[in-house]
Each structure stands twice: as structure tokens, then as C-alpha cells.
């Protein structure tokens, strides 16, 4: 589904991703862990098409298409979704209206009929329930005045509405209390299916107790330095990121 080969990316001339390879098949959940500054969030931003970052080398193909030349909107139409680490507040743009516009733009791009009002409202009702998002919030301006937890739940709500093929969760767990974390994880788990994959970027192992990954990768200094199954996350939790650091230093020494 997603294939990243030898990816190099930088921001303002500063190299962040330095030769990253990753293969993700349909239905798989991959966790990406790593210390602060290792390039986790940059990877998520680059996947979504944030133009602040320059891809200087390498390739990303998604569902057989080269997406590096595509805008964020086209990537979304293809089925890519990024749940933001820091969801943006957009005063004056209603959550609901913008989601309806987003769904219809995707439908237009793929040659489908626009969603009917009835269909849409039913969908909002169902999906909001999934993450226990208050009706009032769905009608408000995008993320404006939302609490941290509400913002993250709104991200998952949007993901559920847009039904992507690949969901990229950028530190969705950071700053969440345990109840909110459970709600978010439950939302994601409900969306898991054989043809939908996830990249779960996180700093903490705890999230992976609730969203159990098929693979865990450790990102360090812009590269994946270790891959394994969910037990790797536990090992990492136990030994700390210094373990990776020391190991890398040994190799380079």
C-alpha cells in the first residue's frame, strides 16, 4: 500500500530524515517510535504533503502512485489521512460544513455523486458516537475552544468521516488523559480493517497497549534503526531510548 524508499527530507536546510525505508501492506498497523527530534513528526508531515519540508531524495508511492508531486488535497483524495499532533484552530469555519465540503471534493475527484444531506447527517451522528464527540462540538468552528482531548477526538472523528485507506496518527496520544486515550484508541480500533492501514507515531509505549501494532519501528536520527513486533515497544519502554542511542554509538564506533 505504502512504500517509502531512501527518503531524505529537510526543513530550512536542516536535514531531518536521512534515508528512511518503510513498506506497509493493507490492513497493517505500524508504530513508529523514537526520541524527540528523531524525525517522527517530520515523516508524518512529509507523508501528508506539508510544503514546509523539502524532500531532497527518495520516493514515496501510495497505492501504486508517486505522491511526492501531489498536493495535500490530492493525497487526501487518494485515501491518505493525517491526524495532526497539534490540530489547527480555524475560527469561522464550521466543522460540519468543512467536512461536508471535504467529502464532496473527494467524491468529485473520484467521480462520485455528492453526499446527500440525509446521508451526511446520519454519518456525522454515527461517527461522532464512535469517539464520543459532543454534537455541539461538531457544529462549532474547527477546533476553536476545544480542549486538548476534544481536538484529538475531533481528528479521529474526521478520519472516520473521510474513511481513508491509510491513517497517519501523529502523537495523537501526547497529552491525553487515560480516559481520552481509551476513547481515541477505541475509535481507531473500530476503523481497523483488512484494507485500511495505520501509521501510529508515538513517543510513549502506553498507546500501544490500546492500539496493538503489527510492527514497531524505532526511528533515530532520521532513519529506522530497529524493527520488530509489539514486544519491541515493551523492550524500548523498559530500556529507554538511551538503549538505542548507545547501540548506535557502538555501531558507529
Amino acid at each position, binding site marked *: 500500500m505504502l512504500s517509502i524508499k531512501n527518503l531524505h527530507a529537510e526543513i530550512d536546510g536542516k536535514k531531518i530524515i536521512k534515508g528512511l525505508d518503510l513498506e506497509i501492506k493493507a490492513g497493517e498497523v505500524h508504530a513508529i517510535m523514537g526520541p524527540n527530534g528523531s524525525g517522527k513528526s517530520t515523516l508524518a508531515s512529509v507523508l*501528508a*504533503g*506539508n*510544503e514546509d519540508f523539502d524532500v531532497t531524495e527518495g520516493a514515496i508511492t501510495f497505492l501504486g502512485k508517486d505522491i511526492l508531486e501531489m*498536493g*495535500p*488535497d490530492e*493525497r*487526501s*483524495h487518494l485515501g491518505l*489521512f*493525517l491526524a*495532526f499532533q497539534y*490540530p*489547527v484552530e*480555524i*475560527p*469561522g*469555519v464550521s466543522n460540519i460544513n*468543512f*467536512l461536508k*465540503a*471535504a*467529502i464532496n*471534493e*473527494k467524491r468529485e*475527484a473520484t467521480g462520485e455523486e455528492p453526499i446527500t444531506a440525509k446521508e451526511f447527517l446520519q454519518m456525522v451522528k454515527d461517527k461522532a458516537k464512535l469517539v464520543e464527540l459532543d454534537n455541539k462540538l461538531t457544529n462549532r*468552528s*474547527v477546533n476553536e475552544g476545544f480542549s486538548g482531548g476534544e481536538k484529538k477526538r475531533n481528528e479521529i472523528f*474526521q478520519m472516520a468521516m*473521510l474513511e481513508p485507506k491509510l491513517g497517519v496518527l501523529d502523537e495523537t496520544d501526547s497529552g491525553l488523559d487515560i480516559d481520552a486515550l481509551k476513547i481515541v484508541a477505541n475509535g481507531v480500533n473500530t476503523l481497523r480493517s483488512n484494507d485500511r492501514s495505520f501509521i501510529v507515531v508515538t513517543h510513549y509505549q502506553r498507546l500501544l497497549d490500546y492500539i496493538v501494532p503489527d510492527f514497531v519501528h524505532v526511528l533515530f536520527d532520521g532513519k529506522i534503526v530497529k524493527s520488530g513486533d509489539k514486544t519491541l515497544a515493551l523492550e524500548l519502554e523498559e530500556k529507554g531510548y538511551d538503549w538505542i542511542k548507545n547501540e548506535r554509538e557502538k555501531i558507529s564506533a
Partner: protein
Amino acid sequence: MEIVESKNTTAPLKELIKSYAGPGKADDAAIAQRLEKLRFPTRRDEYWKYTRTRGIEKANWQFSQAQEIDEIAIPESIGDGPRLVFVNGLLSKEFSITEGMPEIESVERNYSDERSIPFNPLADLNQVLPQNTFRIHLKKNEVWEQVISIVHIFNGNNAISQPYAEVILEQGASLKINEYQLHRGAKTFSNSYTKYDVGNNAELGLDIIQEGTNESFLHTQTLVNQEKDSRFTQNTFTLSGKWVRNNTIVNINGQNSEANLNGMYIPSGTEHVDNHTIVDHKVAHCESNELYRGVMMDKSTGVFNGKVFVRQDAQKTNAFQSNGNVLLSDFATINSKPELEIYADDVKCSHGSTTGQMDEEALFYLMSRGITEKNARILLVNAFAEDVLAEMVNENLREYIESAIKEKLSGASNGA
């Protein structure tokens, strides 16, 4: 010693009298004399610093008697309600719908206001040669439920139009007006002057839509007098036009009154939009709110100058003023100057001006959800304008304005 740099009335403007057919024609000599004395601003005139009148002074304007308009010239959003339609400043009986309209009175020529407004030769020009003057007059406690429309269509060739109107609301009267100032076709200059007298406990709501062409000049002088317990709201939406200058002056003469002046402008290309407002709090316990929002595209230029006076007697005044601008291009310019002059000591006043660019983070966020860049920009601009749109007196104009914004932004990439 005051040095007055004088710039005499240009020859073309003196010729105006030849095509003038308004009230006072018999008084030609007096008119000619007044025309002769008009002085136009130079760069030294602070009140006109960023808005030049040269394009108006030099052109060969003529009053037009043309009365033809396309059916489509009248926007659908007006509906079938009562309306007065003016073509090139003259009332069109054919296109007006007087059923449901308050009675219209005619006005005698009146020069008495000329000293009560800051230096403005264009307002003077209107006063010298006013066209088709009329007055809407609501008597005591007359509450007009139905929104009335005033539609001005300017479509002559090198045509000047100088509408003069008065709206008088006696005690307890209430009126809502949709006003359209629409320039269509060839080179046009509309120079209107409107007076609003809002009596005790009376209420006036006004939404104005201004549309121009790349050869249009639009100037308005608005003078409002508010008495005790009155409410006045004016929302001005400037959607297009080569040159636009609006002057609004509100005198708050009676206690417990409220004045709201809002505006939204979205110039593109090399369009120029200037809003000058003066709110004069003369008495205590009144409130004024001003909110102007600008979306500046391409090489457009904009001016906001809002002055609030709080006189010594105007204790317990609440005066708020805010001008926000978003620059969508590196070449657009805005000159924003909110001013407060306070002589009372127990008041709550604030003013502010912000200028920024499109929020790139929000743009990326919307696009990452599948919204194209163009539509994401439209959403964000509408959101920016929303605070002003929310103040609209007549919600039925919203769609008209939103679709104009959409059209304007859609044409942006073509370098319009």
C-alpha cells in the same frame, strides 16, 4: 501663518453644469460660482493622503439621461419587495416597485451641511449639483416591517451621478434598507450624499453593497445624526471597483444611543478602497462599535481611517473600533489608522488594527482533508469576513456577498 495651496477646479468639472438637469437649474450663476471655488486635495491634506482625486478631476464627466438597463442588472437577491431603482442618478419609474414603499418626499436644495464635515470637495460637488433629491420620512412610531431596497445602477459613458437623499425617522420609527451601488459598463463616477436623521428611540439598519468596474469611481458621503435612545447600523460591503472612497460621519447627540459601523472590502488587481469614519460621542451613556475587515489581493491598495471623538460630556461611553486586514499578495498595501480622541474621564474605549497574511497552517490543515487550495482559501476568507457578515441587517444578502467573494478569489490566479 497658514499657507493654503490652492488648486482650482479643473475645466472639465466646470463644464458639468451644461449637462446638469437637477433642481436649481435656474440658479446657474450661483452654481457656477460655487463650482469655481471647489478646491481639490493635494498630498498635504491629511484627510486625503492615501486617496488621490486626480482621476476624477481630470475626466470629462457628464450627467447622463440614459435610463436603459439590462433586466439582469437588478440582482435577484432583491426579490419582489418594494424598491426604488435609480439609473445614473435618476429615478426609474419603470424598474421601481413602489407598493410597500414609504412615501417619498422631494427635498429643497440645501447647503447647510457643508461646514459640518471635514474637507471634502466631492461632497461639496454633490451639494452644488445634486440630482433627483428625495427623502424617506417615517412618522412617529411608524415601524416599517418590510425591508426596502434602493438600487443605483451607473452605466453611462463618462457619466457622473450625484444622488442626494435624506432618511428621516421620527421618534420610535424603524426601517431597514438594502442599498446597492452598482457600476456597470463604461466609465462612471457616482458621488452620493446621504443624510440619516434617527430620532428618539428610532432604529435604522442599512446594508450597502458596492460593486464597480475597472473604470469606476465611487464616492459616498454619509452623515448620521442620532438622537436619544436611537440605534443605527451600517454595513458596507465593497466587492469591486477601481476607486472607492466612503466617508461616514455619525454624530451621537442623544444619550443611550448605539451606533454600529461595519465594513468588508476585497479589492483585487489595482483596485483602491478607502473607508473613512468619524464617530462623535457628544453625550453620555452611548455605545459605538466599528468593525472593518479587508481582504487585499494582487496590487490593490486600501485605507481605513476611523476616528472616534469622546467629548467631555460623553461620560460612560463605550467605543470600540477594530480594523483587520489579510494580505493575500506581497504587492497589496493597506494604510490603517484607528484614532481615538477622548476628553471624558470615565469611558471604555478600545481600538486596534491588525494586518496579516493567510494562515498557512490552517490552509494546510484544510487541504490535508481533501479541500483544494482554491476552496480552502475561499473558506478561510469567508471565515475572516464572517464577523462582519454576522452583523448584517438583512440576511438575504449573505449569499450574494459570499458568491461575489468566491468569484473574486477564483479569478485571483489569473492575475485579475
